[in-house]
């Protein structure tokens, strides 16, 4: 019988992304140039946000050989005034895939800094040029690296490393990549423009391959409050995550060697002199509260073994069988396995079970998740059909799945903590819209935080009408975590909600000059694709979008009707001024009078009152 020998190779993350680069938005020279710009600009903004620095971001794209036709190599440089990166981290941060500083649970534009490395990888495979990184984290010394990626080993190769003196912190990343600016230019300019709308506290400059400069100066001087890093919400968790959390909460039985015995001796404050088992236990009891965990475990073991240090030195703990209350050990002297019973009433027994079996379920819940109190934890245990004091370490695989399912289903958990979110805020958003569109009407709303699958999110939305806005609306500006979304808008949930709105109901008709700005903030945006361009229609998000849009639409509607009324009043005043004198003229002859009736005063009063109405309406409109 022939056997087929299969060979399994482990591939490095770099290699994986190299062969799947389409997923991350590097499918062709046009899209890749745009994606690379996005990744570096977003990293720069994220870095500044984290340290509360007002960002100055400088983006340059220059063709290596301007006379060549597209697609061709371009040098893309993004420079910021952020905190920089320490020299020791630079090679790993820019020379390996899956190395980053953004692993906590909070809102950021990108996750893990993966995209930037992808851009570097794409640059390297299309032009074979290293990435140039200039960074100063102390504002005195700048480290300059030229780095290549070893794709197979997922390791950086430092081509060059120099330093020089500088006066400011900041990071500059420069890559050479194959791109098509003639096709991507429009999107990149839109991206910079739209980014400056949602990041009004940043100054963005774009120096393009045709030496055209696009400068967007900050018009808000305050950075919105930064998000905090928080514990996960039970709804946003899966079995694997629980397993890892349990491992974190469990402790190994320490290996009792000479060093350990020495440590226990020291912590108990015992001198070198020999002590009996009883006196050791007495000493330990008196100092118990101040003892570190490892020492407590050793003392607990000793209490059941009834051994002093000398004897302890001659055995090895094999197993602590909590359920059968037995302690197994190997005796080197007799070369055989032995066991002793453990008294479940003793405090030492508790200490050992804690260590071996992990925390009780309720402690696990309150300590490791956000916003769960002791009483909720007990209620949940009942709901999930676990004993509240059940040790996490004793859960079987099946029980873990049951726990995970119950965590998803239990409805009495509080809504996820939204302090990890960083919405822009209604005021800066309104300022931005006013500055960009100079509209006749603007309304903004920030919805209260909500959650889908345990991930908190906040919807911010603005609506503007008239002014410099082009007709043919509504034009929708989509943002997610302060990133403009420019591609694939057809399948986006925001577009879906906008398109399903019957604008006639809100007195918006024809091809109105009308824009909608939508911003979804979340610790995890449910993108439909890895390209991060369209948001999936999660029911909870769709609902919040709808509520936000309805709220704003009603305001728009009242503006439109006020505007309609004021137009009507103007029209009425004109009509009176035109027709009443005619009626007066005709009826004078008809009635056989010589002199016209005395109607002028009435007409003036009426027109004045209509004009006053117009002014009143305009005042109201301004205060909406």
């Amino acid at each position: 019988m022939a056997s087929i020998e299969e060979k399994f190779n482990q591939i490095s993350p770099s290699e994986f992304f190299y062969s799947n680069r389409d997923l991350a938005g590097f499918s062709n020279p046009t899209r890749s140039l745009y994606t690379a710009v996005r990744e570096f600009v977003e990293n720069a903004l994220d870095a500044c946000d984290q340290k509360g620095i007002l960002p100055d971001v400088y983006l340059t794209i220059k063709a290596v050989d301007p006379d060549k036709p597209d697609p061709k190599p371009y040098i893309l440089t993004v420079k910021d005034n952020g905190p920089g990166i320490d020299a020791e981290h630079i090679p790993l941060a820019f020379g390996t895939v899956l190395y980053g500083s953004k692993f906590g649970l909070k809102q950021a534009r990108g996750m893990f800094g993966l995209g930037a490395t992808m851009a570097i990888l794409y640059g390297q495979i299309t032009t074979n040029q290293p990435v140039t990184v200039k960074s100063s984290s102390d504002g005195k010394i700048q480290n300059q690296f030229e780095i290549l990626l070893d794709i197979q080993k997922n390791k950086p190769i430092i081509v060059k490393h120099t330093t020089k003196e500088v006066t400011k912190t900041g990071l500059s990343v420069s890559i050479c990549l194959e791109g098509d600016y003639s096709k991507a230019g429009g999107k990149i300019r839109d991206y910079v423009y739209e980014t400056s709308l949602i990041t009004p506290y940043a100054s963005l400059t774009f120096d393009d391959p045709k030496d055209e400069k696009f400068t967007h100066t900050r018009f808000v001087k305050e950075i919105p409050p930064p998000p905090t890093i928080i514990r996960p919400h039970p709804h946003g968790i899966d079995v694997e995550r629980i397993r890892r959390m349990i491992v974190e909460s469990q402790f190994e039985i320490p290996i009792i060697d000479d060093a350990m015995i020495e440590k226990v001796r020291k912590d108990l404050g015992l001198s070198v002199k020999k002590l009996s088992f009883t006196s050791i236990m007495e000493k330990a009891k008196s100092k118990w509260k101040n003892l570190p965990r490892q020492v407590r475990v050793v003392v607990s073991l000793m209490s059941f073994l009834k051994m002093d240090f000398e004897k302890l030195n001659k055995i090895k703990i094999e197993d602590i069988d909590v359920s059968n209350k037995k302690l197994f050990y190997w005796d080197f002297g007799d070369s055989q396995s032995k066991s002793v019973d453990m008294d479940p009433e003793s405090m030492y027994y508790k200490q050992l079970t804690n260590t071996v079996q992990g925390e009780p379920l309720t402690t696990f819940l309150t300590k490791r998740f956000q916003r769960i109190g002791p009483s909720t934890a007990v209620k949940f245990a009942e709901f999930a059909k676990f004993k509240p004091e059940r040790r996490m370490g004793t859960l079987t695989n099946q029980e873990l799945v049951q726990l995970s399912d119950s965590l998803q289903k239990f409805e009495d958990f509080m809504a996820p903590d939204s302090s990890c979110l960083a919405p822009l805020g209604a005021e800066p958003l309104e300022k931005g819209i006013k500055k960009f569109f100079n509209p006749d009407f603007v309304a903004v709303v920030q919805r209260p935080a909500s959650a889908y699958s345990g991930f908190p999110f906040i919807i911010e939305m603005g609506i503007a009408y008239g002014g410099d806005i082009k007709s043919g609306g509504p034009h929708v500006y989509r943002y997610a975590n302060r990133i403009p979304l420019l591609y694939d808008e057809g399948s986006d949930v925001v577009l879906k909600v906008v398109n399903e709105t019957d604008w006639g109901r809100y007195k918006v008709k024809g091809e109105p000059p009308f824009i909608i700005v939508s911003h979804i903030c979340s610790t995890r945006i449910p993108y439909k694709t890895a390209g991060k361009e369209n948001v999936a229609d999660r029911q909870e998000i769709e609902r919040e979008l709808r509520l936000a849009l309805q709220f704003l639409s009603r305001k728009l509607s009242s503006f439109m009707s006020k505007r309609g009324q004021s137009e009507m009043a103007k029209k009425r005043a004109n009509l009176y001024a035109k027709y009443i004198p005619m009626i007066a003229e005709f009826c004078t002859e008809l009635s056989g009078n010589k002199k016209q009736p005395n109607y002028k005063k009435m007409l003036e009063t009426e027109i004045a009152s209509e004009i006053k109405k117009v002014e009143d309406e305009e005042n109201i409109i301004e205060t909406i």
Partner: protein
Amino acid sequence: MKPSKKEQDSKIKARSKKADDKQKTILEMLQSHGAKIYDDLDNGQFPKFSIPSRSVSNIVYDKKLRQYILGNNAALRSSRNSSQLRSFTQLIWLAFFANRLTNERKSSTLRDIYYSSQAFAVEFEDQSESDNIIVDLEAVTSRAREDFHIFPEERSSIFGDLNIEYTIPGYEGKTMNLANHPDGYSIGPSLTTAELVDTSAEIVIAIEKGGLFTRFVEEQVDKKFKSIIINTGGQAPRSTRTLLKRLHDEMKLPVICLTDGDVYGEHIAMVIKSGSANAAHLRELTVPDAKWVGVWATDIEKYKLPTIPMTEADIKRCYDLQKDPRYQDGIWKKELDVFLRIKRKAELEAFSKYGLTNITDKYLPQKLELAKSL
């Protein structure tokens, strides 16, 4: 015996006084409307007046009057209401213009009105808008537009032994016999306002078509059947209906109608008899005793007339008329049902199949005889 000159003079005077009185009444009425509006304005108020509603829901059939009339619904038209201001102004202008026409005894046409408005900066979108305002004036004053010297363009004609005497300016006292000109006389403002002096005729035949009218004159139907022949030119214009009514009321002549053998022909006769819904705001336009003698649907079979099939529109019209209260009994209902059954129609000219004079030699005498029993 020929009346003496003196007698004649006094007659003319009496007639012209009658015309003067009528003119005076109209002018006074217009003036009073004008005065009300003038006073409103003078008192610092937006003038307004009420106008009978001409909507379908307010048009009802009056069995006693045997015509459609307007119900009691009225709408207030106010110059304060900006959506009514324009039509309000148009209507005041029209009253003002009608006042001038009546005063100066000048006549005008519907189209004239449309163009005249432009000299006064009164805007009408098109003639149908100005026509509509004219109907408004009729409704407000309960007077036909002809009373304000406004006439439609379409003319029908009349032929037969009838002496008339003009009352229009420049022709006062002049007489005319309407059998003098074989093409007939067109029924215009001067004829409708003329005095009907005398006639030897014993019946009025209203016929739908000009071609048959000419044939009837040629065949001397007027003499043979002692009749006055009127060509209605399709649906009879108001002036013609007014004249028909006067011939019936003043000269005591019976009126019969001869139309094409189709649903439209039947309705032409009905409108002469009992008016149209469009003119529900007006009385004095109907001849309730008028009779429709043909061509009936039953005639088509009886006289074996060449026919053409009814169109979809024809059939729909039949069903529409079936709902009309005037078509609920008698010959009107019977013939309508037959039209619907045979779904064919025949024109007056169809008789030519049996010779050009067949209609006057055979058909007409039979029908005239029949009319007596209707």
